[in-house]
């Protein structure tokens, strides 16, 4: 059922995807049954359905087409607990009060053009009014200076999308730090009881870490997770520079919360915070749950929710607990990819060879971005991620595409670099390694045959050379524009070198040709050619005659 509250957008359907994903779903699932929930702004249908399962849910959407779609999707009689309000935020009356207001999409898509534009604080104030006293607000706040913005080649202040009638972007009024968000909400009568930083994108986060954990938690492992989830999110599209490095190093170096793409806030309409939803130290969506989460989330029973792994601090150390309840120690250590890059940048050949050898011996089918290394121990970071037969080739691409310094600067061809890396990894016959098949390895083929130089059937036909390079595209995070500029500069340098080299060789060739000419003359002289001998004899006689004449003078 749709209620038109006024100010709706009759033709416009949201252009950008709604807030979605297993992480938001996981949080929604923690809400108690039987409560009244307002879902403000565009949210994934699967998420709304899951909420409406045992709760009375009202959705607020500004787009009429979206409201109709949601309403017809939810026409199932068993989901009668769903009401759709269509209109702009300021038309929301406080006649209805809710136990929980969910705004995982933030407050940016609540107002329509019919409304006076509202800034962040005004929007939050309106949401607050629809909470009953003691009610809980779950709000995502986009960090307008977050990593996703820093690497975005477009700028929101120049957005041409149809809902950018007021594109304030970084000139907006939303707080720029997690603690300021809490301060502002507190001042609005919404004391904050829970706060967490989100990666890799506000609309579909797959990693949540609370600020305390970012301060005192296992930073290397968390940095590895941040890089890992970022890599997955940026497997397509264009970026200014590789966001994985920024994500990992900001977490490791203590400014993870400041540069996180968004913050999730749990606040209560109360004089002081009360016990509501508790956020664990960290949550992440592993393997199968990453990407394609819309479909995962909409499946009844939610396989997406099961993919969420919780990270818990215990007196015995950090544990990770998967959706099925099994807990195991959180593997410690540093992301292999970063260790490899740092050894390559430092020209630390012994360390680079040690890491490559350990990796190719222990986990040859796991990409470097999914391996933690702690001394001599190599552990898979996310066991849900599919195995790859071209893990080493991917690292070679990263070195070249990323413009990283490495100990073999003369090698610019990726296939040769793969051979060098394979040699450095102790693989006896590098040509045997499946260089670029780019295929996921079939389950059951987890053997170490790659390391043993006996590629499996599917990998033996792996293409080489140019095909291989093309095959690589689109599977790894794309090189950023900065990296592309570096590549252009590198190619210019290589071209200049090649031109200069060809001139160098021409000079060398001329020298050799002159030498050859002299040698040919000598050969002719000794080869018994009659004409030559006659001419030579004539020359000798002529010289002798000349000398005699000179002497006689």
């Amino acid at each position, binding site marked *: 059922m749709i209620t038109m509250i006024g100010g709706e957008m009759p033709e416009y359907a949201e252009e950008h995807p709604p807030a979605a994903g297993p992480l938001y779903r996981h949080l929604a699932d923690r809400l108690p049954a039987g409560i009244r929930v307002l879902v403000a702004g565009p949210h994934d249908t699967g998420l709304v359905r899951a909420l409406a399962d045992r709760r009375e849910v009202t959705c607020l959407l500004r787009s009429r087409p979206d409201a109709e779609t949601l309403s017809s999707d939810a026409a199932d009689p068993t989901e009668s607990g769903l009401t759709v309000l269509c209109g702009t935020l300021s038309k929301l009356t406080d006649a209805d009060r809710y136990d929980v207001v969910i705004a995982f999409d933030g407050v940016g898509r609540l107002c329509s053009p019919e409304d006076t534009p509202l800034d962040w604080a005004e929007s939050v104030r309106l949401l607050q009014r629809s909470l009953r006293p003691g009610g809980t607000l779950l709000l995502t706040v986009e960090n307008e200076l977050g990593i996703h913005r820093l690497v975005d080649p477009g700028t929101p202040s120049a957005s041409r999308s149809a809902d950018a009638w007021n594109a304030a972007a970084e000139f907006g009024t939303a707080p720029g730090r997690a603690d300021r968000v809490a301060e502002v909400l507190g001042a609005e009568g919404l004391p904050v009881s829970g706060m967490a930083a989100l990666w890799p994108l506000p609309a579909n986060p797959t990693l949540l870490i609370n600020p305390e954990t970012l301060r005192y938690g296992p930073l290397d492992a968390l940095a590895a997770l941040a890089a890992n989830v970022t890599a997955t999110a940026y497997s397509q599209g264009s970026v200014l520079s590789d966001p994985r490095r920024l994500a990992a190093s900001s977490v490791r170096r203590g400014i993870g919360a400041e540069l996180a793409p968004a913050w999730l806030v749990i606040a209560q309409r109360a004089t002081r915070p009360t016990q509501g939803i508790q956020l664990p130290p960290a949550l992440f969506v592993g393997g199968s749950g990453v990407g394609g989460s819309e479909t995962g989330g909409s499946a009844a029973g939610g396989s997406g929710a099961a993919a969420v792994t919780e990270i818990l601090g215990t007196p015995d150390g950090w544990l990770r607990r998967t959706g099925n309840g099994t807990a195991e120690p959180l593997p410690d250590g540093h992301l292999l990819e970063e260790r490899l890059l740092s050894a390559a940048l430092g*020209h630390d*050949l*012994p360390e680079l060879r040690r890491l490559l050898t350990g990796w190719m011996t222990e986990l040859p089918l796991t990409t470097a971005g999914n391996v933690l290394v702690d001394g001599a121990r190599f552990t898979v970071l996310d066991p849900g991620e599919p195995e790859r037969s071209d893990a080493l080739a991917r690292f070679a691409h990263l070195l070249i595409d990323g413009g990283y310094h490495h*100990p*073999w*600067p*003369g*090698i610019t061809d990726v296939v*040769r670099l793969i*051979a*060098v890396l*394979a*040699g*450095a990894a*102790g*693989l*006896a*016959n*590098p*040509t045997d390694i499946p260089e670029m098949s780019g295929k996921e390895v079939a389950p059951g083929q987890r053997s170490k045959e790659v390391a043993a130089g006996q590629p499996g059937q599917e990998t033996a036909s792996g293409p080489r050379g140019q095909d291989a390079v093309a095959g690589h595209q689109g599977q790894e995070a794309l090189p950023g524009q900065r990296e592309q500029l570096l590549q252009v500069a590198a190619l210019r*340098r*290589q071209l*200049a*070198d*090649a031109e*200069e*080299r060809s001139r*160098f*060789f021409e000079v060398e060739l001329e020298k050799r040709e002159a030498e050859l000419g002299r040698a040919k003359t000598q050969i002719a002289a000794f080869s018994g050619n009659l004409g030559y001998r006659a001419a030579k004899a004539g020359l000798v006689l002529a010289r002798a005659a000349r000398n005699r004449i000179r002497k006689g003078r």
Partner: protein
Amino acid sequence: MHHGNHFYGHAHVLAEYCGLDPADPPRVEGYLQHGWNVVDGLGAGTPYAPGLPIFVWSERTRRRAWSMNRPLATVTGAPFLYLLRSLAEPEPETPREGTIWYPFHGWEGQKVSGDHHRLIDEITATEDGPITFCLYWNEFEDSRIRALYEKSGRVICHGYRGYMRMRTDARFLHNQLAELRKHRRVASNRLSTAILYGTAAGCEPAVYGDPMYLDREDTSTPDRIRREWPELHGSAPEPERARATVLAELGDGHLASPAELRAILGWPA
């Protein structure tokens, strides 16, 4: 590539290490450092094809090469270390004794000038065991100089390093290693490649005596070498410290596996 890659049979030694035919090493895609130096790994005036790597011995040389606008320097370690690795030291028939002494030498382009008499006197006064003088080929072929040294010890030559790929003695380093392994000490009047090789081969190093000079030689470089590596100078430097420095200069710990080296040099697998 450059004929310097064949000097002293370096390319041949590396080919053998890589499991290829040592008699016919493939073309190296770059330039091998053929002797120890304190510049970018290549000798001054080497005609250098742009855009090709220099395969230098040590990380220190690579850094220096970078600072000298040679960004493609690649550390592979000295070919002599590859030889040392593949030729295990045989059980000596007789224990190591005496000193192998390498008087500083000139080359095709520059002759060395100095007082050989005075140098020999100083050597015989310092060394207490038998002395083997190893002369460079051009001085070995100079009967006058050779006769001077023959009065005070055994005189040898490791062979001709080769020039323009002609007359290359591919066994040069093998000969040198075999000789070094017979001696307890290795000495010279200049810190040079031979001292590094000798030390790596297990000799105690010494650098003393009239350093002599090449025609038109800029003396600031030899002065700098003496200042920079004091632990290798003197008639009896502390052997362990000297050895650590020498191994670092030769790139010990940086040697590539045969497969890696083949890929680096652009050789077939």
